[in-house]
């Protein structure tokens, strides 16, 4: 399957929890009977998905429908109870901007650690640190700890660091719901450039219009299952030629 980037079959993930959760060891030992009743939350119910290389898929659905769980299973953060996942290519996931960033560290220190966590090599990170600082537009603050940055500067730095990661498959979970208009525009432009360069992507968003602009296919997820889809032809018909200015209009 050379042209398949992600192939998952019959994914099942459930969370078994006590109705009254046990959070203390002393409760487990001493008051076990009080917490005996269990409930099962089925986050994924036999979900199968194939993503071809270069394809961008949008995942849309209400809260608790299983979108984020699916991404976490694909990323290997959560182990599925049943089913298989096959990833062909280097994976990079962004479930939150600035993972590993610390408010007491400077920009270059945060970029370095972020890069290491993304599996980049020391030399690679050092080579692109200046570029990331320039792209983020935080050169004036680069000797200050992150706590001295405005929220917008932090977002820009985090996104600039994230966008430099060299990977074949990208997973994004609602990270573009933050920041101001200019920041969002920058993000969408970057996603478009990733798509043009043949990368594969999975995007989770609560905004269907955003997904329509970038994705080749949109899958509707509810109760841990794919309940419908918008295929490429339908999306092409809907897609406006001036997609980026439309973002400004909507906001």
């Amino acid at each position, binding site marked *: 399957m050379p042209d398949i980037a992600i192939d998952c079959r019959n994914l099942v993930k459930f969370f078994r929890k006590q109705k009254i959760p046990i959070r203390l060891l002393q409760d487990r030992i001493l008051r076990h009977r009080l917490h005996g009743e269990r409930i099962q939350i089925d986050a994924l119910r036999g979900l199968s998905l194939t993503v071809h290389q270069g394809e961008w898929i949008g995942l849309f659905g209400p809260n608790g429908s299983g979108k984020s769980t699916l991404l976490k299973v694909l990323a*290997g*953060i959560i182990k599925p109870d049943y089913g298989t996942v096959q990833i062909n290519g280097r994976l990079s996931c962004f479930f*939150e901007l600035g993972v590993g960033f610390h408010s007491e560290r400077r920009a270059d220190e945060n970029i370095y650690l972020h890069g290491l966590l993304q599996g980049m090599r020391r030399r690679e990170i050092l080579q692109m640190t200046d570029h990331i600082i320039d792209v983020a537009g935080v050169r004036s603050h680069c000797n200050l700890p992150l706590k001295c940055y405005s929220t917008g500067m932090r977002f820009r730095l985090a996104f600039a660091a994230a966008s430099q990661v060299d990977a074949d498959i990208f997973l994004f979970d609602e990270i573009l719901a933050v920041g101001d208009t200019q920041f969002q525009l920058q993000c969408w432009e970057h996603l478009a450039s990733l798509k043009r360069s043949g990368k594969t992507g999975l995007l989770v968003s609560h905004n269907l219009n955003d997904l329509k602009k970038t994705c080749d296919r949109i899958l509707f997820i509810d109760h841990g299952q794919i309940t419908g889809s918008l295929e490429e032809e339908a999306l092409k018909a809907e897609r406006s030629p001036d997609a980026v200015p439309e973002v400004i209009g909507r906001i």
Partner: protein
Amino acid sequence: MATHRFTFSQSLQVVLAIGWADFVLKYRGSILGYFWSLIGPLVRFLVILLIFGPYVSSSIPLYPLYLFLGIIIWEHFTVTTNGCMGMLFEKEGIVQRHPFPHFLLILAVGWTNLIIFATHLVIFALFAWYFQAHFTLNALLLPLILVQMTFIALGVGMVLASYCLKYRDVCHLWGIAIQILFWLTPIMYPYRAQETATKSIVSFFQQPGFHPLRQYLDLFIHFQPISIIINDARRLALYPGSSGVPTLLHLTGLTLICIMFFLLGKWLFDRRSPYFAQEY
């Protein structure tokens, strides 16, 4: 499955970077800086020395050094085990949202505390120079003690970290256990190092006035690994002449036991870590 595999060299870079960053950040912005790490053990050292010192110092030569070395090794153990649990809470963002071998976070804790312990050892050396203790070449084996203690502390730390997210009172219970263990470790009182293991076990049930609890505690104090490690460190650094240095067989055996603790902890941690993200 899924994610990018970290090579050995990348893992090493991550451990060194996170560990060093945590060491630096711990003291960045505070007026006392690094000396914060010294205040805890130093206060404990002074309190014990001033209150209990007069009762035991006559039977233990170089008692201030004996006590200080015991306290810094003990501190290394407690700070590392607590650090293993704390790391999962501090790095919640990474654990929940990043496909990353969690084991590396534990190694980073070990690295951070190894740096701090090494600096404490330098201070111990300065103390020793002040008290005119005579170091021999045997003191060069002290880093081995440091490695043994790190292995055992990380092993115990990983067992605790495996369950500290699921059961939030594990940290609290460990705090109590640490208090008890402190008194069951010969840090401020003498260790009966002269008896061999076999002789002790044989004589265990033959002592006059046999009292089960007292005897079991005695046996525990004598043979628990932290007691042995601290005693070995003192024999190497302070009393190579009078107590005799630990044999190669003894050091190898103890190192293997420490590695066993570490592997047991790692096995449990690896089994539990896929569930960490859903236990916050």
